[in-house]
């Protein structure tokens, strides 16, 4: 497949791995932001092929993992009210305080698993007598389509469509991690898909403030090897700047049309991150002029304040302080079938990646 097979090529990847080996002189800790990158690293067995000096730290870029548990409870409460709840498939197995969306479906809830929020708008159009809510989670990547669904519903005059928003942003999360005095991360691989939308201008100040190289990186093994190589090269030279490895998808200014749609519907607001806590100005909330599409407001949802399972160390996993297999419950009490927390069931969760793919554990 064009643009895929060439980035999964054995010789090309091994060549870059050899280059890393040549330049590396001391241990470095590099964090890949995105859960998709974590999965690719583990799935392709890349972690075992890197020189032992390079330690990959898995970041918080799993949208499902950082969606607050309370929001899942609220989504389940909506289903109990007879609402058609539409969600990306990733979200449906993540445990709420009592059950997951999938378990709520088994108890009679009307859950529809979709690939696009525009499908949810169609469902609202075809079911005028029912309320339809789309569970709008994700990083900057899913924001444009979610915003577009609101614009489309507005254009069609649909009053039975709304979204339950839990949008989070990458740069504030990076700052949150870097400002921790215990942070030992030397370099970042930036999330390629997020930057395809947002560009990478906002990463320059972070790189400068924290003296840290940031390499915007793709998701295939060759991309990741190259991203790591460029980060190591900077670290060995003692430089720090933003580089773009993922040029085939990412430009400095990003996708301006998508950004315009996001700005039209959303504004920046504080967000709670599951396992991490509230990070100021770290997510999107609906603009006041679109508050009619805000499911939380429409259905007067009240957060339950229920606490997370105390055995789950998702926060430490998501901020890279712990690796999944360092958790005493990993693969024992906590498995994809009976997860204690979100990183074990999300398809981009670090714990799921280690559970499904890691051969060395």
């Amino acid at each position: 497949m064009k643009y895929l097979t060439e980035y999964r090529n054995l010789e090309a990847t091994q060549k870059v791995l050899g280059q890393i080996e040549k330049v590396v002189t001391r241990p470095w800790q590099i964090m890949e932001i995105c859960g998709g990158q974590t999965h690719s690293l583990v799935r392709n067995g890349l972690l075992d092929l890197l020189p032992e000096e390079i330690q990959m730290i898995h970041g918080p870029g799993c949208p499902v993992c950082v969606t607050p548990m309370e929001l899942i409870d609220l989504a389940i409460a909506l289903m109990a009210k007879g609402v058609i709840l539409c969600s990306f498939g990733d979200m449906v197995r993540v445990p709420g305080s009592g059950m997951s969306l999938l378990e709520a479906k088994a108890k009679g809830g009307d859950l529809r698993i979709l690939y696009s929020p525009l499908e949810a708008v169609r469902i609202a159009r075809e079911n005028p007598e029912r309320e339809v809510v789309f569970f709008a989670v994700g990083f900057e990547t899913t924001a444009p389509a979610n915003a577009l669904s609101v614009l489309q519903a507005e254009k069609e005059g649909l009053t039975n469509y709304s979204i339950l928003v839990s949008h989070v942003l990458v740069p504030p999360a990076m700052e949150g991690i870097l400002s921790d005095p215990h942070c030992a991360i030397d370099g970042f691989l930036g999330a390629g898909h997020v930057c395809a939308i947002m560009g990478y201008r906002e990463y320059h100040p972070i790189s400068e403030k924290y003296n840290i190289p940031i390499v915007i990186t793709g998701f295939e093994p060759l991309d990741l090897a190259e991203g790591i190589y460029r980060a190591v090269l900077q670290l060995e030279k003692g430089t720090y700047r933003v580089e773009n490895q993922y040029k085939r998808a990412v430009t400095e200014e990003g996708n301006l049309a998508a950004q315009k749609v996001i700005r039209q519907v959303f504004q920046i607001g504080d967000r709670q991150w599951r396992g991490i806590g509230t990070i100021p100005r770290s997510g999107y909330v609906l603009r006041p002029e679109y508050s009619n599409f805000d499911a939380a407001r429409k259905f007067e949802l009240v957060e339950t304040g229920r606490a997370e399972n105390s055995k789950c160390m998702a926060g430490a996993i998501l901020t890279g302080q712990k690796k999944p297999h360092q958790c005493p419950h990993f693969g024992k009490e906590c498995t994809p079938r009976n997860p204690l927390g979100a990183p074990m069931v999300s398809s981009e969760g670090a714990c799921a990646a280690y559970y499904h793919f890691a051969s060395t554990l």
Partner: protein
Amino acid sequence: MYSKPKLPDSIQLAHGSGGLMTRELLDEIVFTTFQNPYLEQKHDGAIVPLEGPVVISTDSFVVSPIFFRGGNIGELAVHGTVNDVAMCGGIPKFLSLSFIIEEGLPTSDFLKIVHSIKVAADASGVQIVTGDTKVVESGKGDKIFINTTGIGSPHPKGRIAMEHVTVGDQVLVSGPIAAHGMAILSEREGLEFESEIQSDTTNLNHLVDDLLQNFGPAIHLLRDPTRGGVSGVCSEIAQDSDLGVVLRETDFPIDPQVSAACEILGLDPLYVANEGILCAIVDGNDASEILSFMKGHAKGSKAACIGAIVEEHPGKVVMESSIGGKRIVTPLIGEQLPRIC
């Protein structure tokens, strides 16, 4: 022969009542289509000739949508059970056929399905000898569910058993993987996407028959990787044999469209269902000859050797990735779901 005006446009509850309308439905559609001496006995069941040990397998079919690119629930119900009997090393001969129909199913749809069953059964060389029809209220089913049970005799040269799987055996697949699952997914509500992907649903009993005839005891184990895909089958083999399975990512045959659809939807083709390929664990010494034979067979032209049975990592399946890395392949938990970004 398939469109008698006597029947109403859609199936009604009374068609499952056991009364006159049931009789009409059976006479007009079922008996006419499948006529054979065993059905004509008009018993409550069928008396069929079989000697020696009997191979038996049963399966229920609930696929949605019932018509999909490359097939429908009817032929699937024949192939699924015929293939299960064949995977035991059996030669399937007779099938039972039971319908649970949701009231309101268009009669024309039912006719189409029955016709497909007939075509598939003929192609597989099996006869429908007994059956049942029930109708449930609207909303209590999903258009139509089908159960089939197949019986046959063990192939005289077959030696299929988990205990024959040994270190050095090779893992062969008879064709490209993941086509059925992706064909179905492409037509599911909320996931529709344009593609030409066709289900691979087909019978494999003739291929199995020919393999056993020619290679007999060198065929150690046969499985059809339906739900759970190739990963499910290999995990089962690793666990049950307590040996390791090594797979090579780059050797998997896969149609480029199927591969692209999996990429787009974030699905691993290794976990996607197949309905027309088999996975064979064969003696390492005969593997290349068996592979060439499969490639020369109508049902195995794109066969490939994808891995081997090893002593290392007993109970586990390890995949060698395209870049030379390794990863564990775990069995599927729940339904495979798409990623979101």
